[in-house]
Structures are given as structure tokens and as C-alpha cells.
């Protein structure tokens, strides 16, 4: 049986940052297990720029951002295995994995860091009526085909969903000579970042149809067209609003789902809102010694935030191995109040935080001129004015935990309130 202090599952941006930080925190015995043939994860296919603004204060492409971490990892002599599939993890931190060189491996770990990322929601998950021709792709699959494998996926493309990958692909397909006839979004607001609406759609005069969805796919062997309908406030198609668009390809950019099959095997508790594990201030899941970070935990819109979160997981996994993470002392729960969908972390053990803890959250709708209020027992701890909040952009609130200590608080709530001052 192999034995490591820390086993990291996944060699994408989260796994790389976590492993590097664990090593910097004094742990030498670290192993990364990666399913793909190279490190870097999804960044390798994200050839557009916009990565690293917080981290490096410059705009890098995805491969450039990955390259910096991969080189640092290799320079630090951290072990990794490529083409390796993890089959099982258990509560007592036994990892079972397989590849064609080592065969079946049983690896004993003192701590595990989950960094498996997420998967795309598919046509099957949406249940779009119609025939089942070829030419229906998820946006990320199309991105990999075009940017890494060198295959063009179609000539006349319709895109369902306005998530960032879909928007980025609308521009990419246009640059490579395809005609993108439109993007339909079932919600009344776009799913992706505002800058991507501007530089990917508006720059190329690609129409964005809000409150619209694809209600039928037509075509026998290949997609021949899609029917698009307007939806009402309950997201139900309105009869009589159907429009037919001729196209040979339909791209789906309809959301990402954290990939937690392994987490479930170790009986880790998941939050149904995010689809990711419930974690504390140290990024530790409900199973002691198993940590989680990046998109496996909750879907991020910026890789910079993934890096920040994953460093925290790596540092705390190192503390755990050294017996320096504490379960005792004051424990405070974070509760999403009005307008907030979820908050990460879910639990703050004050003993493990020196001064500040960052809380990450998403709102449930578009809001203008509101206050974000952090409170406990009806006492306001922090108040932030926000001109604009949208579900597609993650919000971060930093709390000074010294304000919470020794007051016997059991929870803090974050809620939105209309800003009466404006």
C-alpha cells in the first residue's frame, strides 16, 4: 500500500494551488492524482484572456495561468500521477485509484483534498423535446474540440444558455468562421459576466434573447434547426411565441454541476443548493481530514478566487496532518437570509481563525441599490452598500472574527435589504 500525508484528487487550478500551499506549509509527502494526460484542468482549453487579474495583476490566458502553477509545482518536486482515475475514497482516507502503468493502487492518506471540479449540465438533464440528431454539444466540449483537438463543430450555431463558456464560445466560433445566430437565456438576466456579454456578443452583433428557451430540436441525422419560445415569469414557454431558427449545431451552456460522486462514497454531506460539500472555515468537509476546494465545492466565476480558496484548503490540510486544526471552542454557523442562496463556509470554528474570515456567497436574483447586512441575534455586525448584485457574480464579505469572540453567538445571518438612503 502507498502512503502519503496528503492526497489531492484533481490537477486543475484548485488541486495545483492546494498542493503547492500544503508543501509551503511544511508537508513534503504529497501526491496529486489527475485523470487527464496533463495537469492544468479546464484552463488548458480556456485560451481566452482574463485570468489572473487579482492573482498576478495582469490578464493571462487560461494556459498561461496554469503554466505558472504547473512550473512551480514541478520545481517543488511534488509527486503527481497522470491518466489516473480515482475509483473510491473512504471515511478513513483510503484512496483507490487505477492507471495503465501502476495498475490498481490503494493509497493511505492522512488528509485528502477534493479538487475534482465540475461537469456540464447536458441535454439529458434539460429534457429538451425533439429528435436526437448529432450536432448538440455542451459548450465546454465544443471548446475542447476547437481549441485543443483542432476540430470545428459546425457552421451555423444556436446557443442555449448565457453562461460564460457559452458566451466565450459564441465569439470563438465567430472568429473561426461559423455564424452564431443567437443566444437564448431562460432567465430574465444573463448567466455570464457583463464583460463577456459586451466583448463576446455585442462586439459581433450576436443577439441575446432573455426569457427565451429552446422548446424543440429538429433534424434526423444532423441538427437542422431549433424552435425557440418566449417564457413567462415561471419559466414556462408561452404558446404562440415559437420561432424557428435554421442551424446545424446547438450549443448548451446551461450550468455546471460540482462532481461529487467520490465525496458521496466517503459519506460527505453535500449542500443541495451548490451540489458541493458542506465545509468549515478551514475548507474541511463534514468528514474530518477531507478537504474540498474549487468548483467541486461551488462553481466560481473567477479562477483567481479558486486559487485563493484552494490555498486555504492546502494550508489547513497541512495543519490537520500536524495536529494543529482544532475542533473545540466557539462554533458559529453562517445562515443565508433573504436574497442569499448560499454562503461558503457554512461553519466557522473561531479557534482556527486568527483575525479575518472571507465569506463567499451568491444572491438569488438581480438587485439594485441594496444593503448586504451581516447580523447575529438582531445585532448588525457589518453592512455593505451595493449598487448592483447579480446571481452570476460571486460576492465576498470579509469578517473580523474578533468581533464575534466571547459573545456566545451561535450563528450569523447575511441578508439583503433595500437601501432606504438612496
Amino acid at each position, binding site marked *: 500500500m502507498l502512503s502519503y500525508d496528503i492526497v489531492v484528487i484533481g490537477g486543475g487550478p484548485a488541486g495545483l494551488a492546494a498542493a503547492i500551499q500544503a508543501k509551503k506549509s511544511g508537508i513534503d509527502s504529497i501526491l496529486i492524482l489527475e485523470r487527464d*494526460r496533463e495537469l492544468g484542468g479546464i484552463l488548458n482549453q480556456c485560451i481566452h484572456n482574463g485570468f489572473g487579474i487579482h492573482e498576478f495583476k495582469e*490578464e493571462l*490566458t*487560461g*494556459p498561461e495561468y496554469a503554466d505558472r502553477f504547473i512550473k512551480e509545482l514541478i520545481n517543488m518536486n511534488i509527486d503527481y500521477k497522470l491518466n489516473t482515475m480515482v475509483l473510491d475514497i473512504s471515511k478513513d482516507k483510503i484512496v483507490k485509484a487505477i492507471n495503465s502503468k501502476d495498475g490498481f493502487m490503494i493509497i493511505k492518506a492522512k488528509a485528502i483534498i477534493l479538487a475534482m471540479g465540475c461537469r456540464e449540465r447536458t441535454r439529458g438533464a434539460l429534457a429538451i423535446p425533439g429528435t436526437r440528431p448529432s450536432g448538440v454539444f455542451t459548450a465546454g466540449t465544443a471548446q475542447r474540440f476547437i*481549441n485543443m483537438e483542432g476540430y470545428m463543430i459546425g457552421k451555423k450555431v444556436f446557443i442555449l444558455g448565457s453562461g460564460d463558456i457559452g458566451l466565450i464560445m459564441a465569439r470563438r466560433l465567430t472568429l473561426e468562421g461559423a455564424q452564431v445566430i443567437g443566444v437564448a437565456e431562460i432567465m430574465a438576466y444573463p448567466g455570464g459576466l457583463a*464583460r463577456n*456579454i459586451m466583448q463576446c456578443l455585442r462586439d459581433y452583433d450576436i443577439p441575446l434573447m432573455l426569457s427565451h428557451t429552446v422548446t424543440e430540436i429538429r433534424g434526423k441525422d444532423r441538427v437542422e434547426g431549433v424552435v425557440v419560445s418566449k417564457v413567462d415569469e415561471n419559466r414556462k414557454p408561452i404558446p404562440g411565441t415559437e420561432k424557428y431558427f435554421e442551424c446545424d449545431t446547438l450549443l448548451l451552456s446551461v450550468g455546471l454541476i460540482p462532481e461529487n460522486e467520490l465525496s458521496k462514497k466517503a459519506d460527505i454531506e453535500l449542500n443541495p443548493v451548490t451540489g458541493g460539500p458542506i465545509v468549515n472555515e478551514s475548507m474541511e468537509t463534514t468528514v474530518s481530514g477531507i478537504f474540498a476546494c474549487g468548483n467541486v465545492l461551488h462553481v466560481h466565476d473567477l479562477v483567481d478566487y479558486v486559487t485563493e480558496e484552494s490555498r486555504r484548503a492546502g494550508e489547513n490540510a497541512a495543519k490537520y496532518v500536524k495536529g494543529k486544526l482544532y475542533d473545540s471552542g466557539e462554533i458559529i454557523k453562517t445562515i443565508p437570509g433573504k436574497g442569499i442562496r448560499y454562503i461558503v463556509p457554512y461553519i466557522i470554528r473561531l479557534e482556527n481563525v486568527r483575525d479575518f474570515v472571507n465569506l463567499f456567497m451568491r444572491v438569488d436574483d438581480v438587485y439594485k441599490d441594496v444593503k448586504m447586512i451581516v447580523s447575529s441575534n438582531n445585532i448588525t455586525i457589518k453592512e455593505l452598500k451595493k449598487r448592483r448584485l447579480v446571481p452570476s457574480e460571486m460576492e465576498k464579505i470579509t469578517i473580523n472574527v474578533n468581533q464575534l469572540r466571547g459573545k456566545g453567538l451561535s450563528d450569523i445571518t447575511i441578508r439583503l435589504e433595500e437601501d432606504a438612503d438612496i
Partner: protein
Amino acid sequence: MKKDMICIVCPIGCHLEIEEDEKSLLGFKVTGNQCKRGQEYAIEEITNPKRILTSTVKIKNAHLSRLPVRTNKPVPKDKIFECMKEINKVEVTAPIRVGDVIIKNILGTGADVLASRDM
């Protein structure tokens, strides 16, 4: 005339308003920006819009068939499709290092096309 735009300099995506202002040294008044780069962006967007261009080129002898590339400076928006034609003519052979110049001074824009990764 006032014009609305969303800043694309970074992912924060400030909602900007720009209008001509003869009194200002720059000739424009920009509001809604959180940093100085937002002001520069708004003025440039009105006078001479530019974009960083990212794409791929064919690569031989590598584990993948496409090498990601980027311009090291923004290129004029109206030259993007011409630049794509130039980029699509190129075929390179591995090994390539991140930052290698793939096309020097593409179409006289002053921007070089660089490799985005080792391969």
C-alpha cells in the same frame, strides 16, 4: 451625447457612462468607473476600440493538434478578422515555449502573436 458601456478591462465589469466634455483635458467625462483604467477604456472604446485577440495555430509533433496563442497587445477591433486570417496560415512544430513569438508585428499593428503555453 451620453453613451452607456460595460467596462471589459477586468471581470468586475463596471457600468460606465461617457459623454463629450469640452472643458475636460481628455475631451470626455467618464462616470461609473472604479479605477483609472475604466476611464482610459471608455475613451479608447469611443475613439479607437481595441481587443486582445486569442486563437490557436496548427502544431506538429505535439500531444495536441492546436497551440493556443494570444496577441501581447490589443489590436484594433476592425482588424480582428484580418488578423485571424494571418493566424490561420501559420503552422508550427513542437517544441514551443510559452511566450515564443509566433507572428511578429501582425499586420503592422505593433502587436506580436505569442504562444500561450509550452508544447
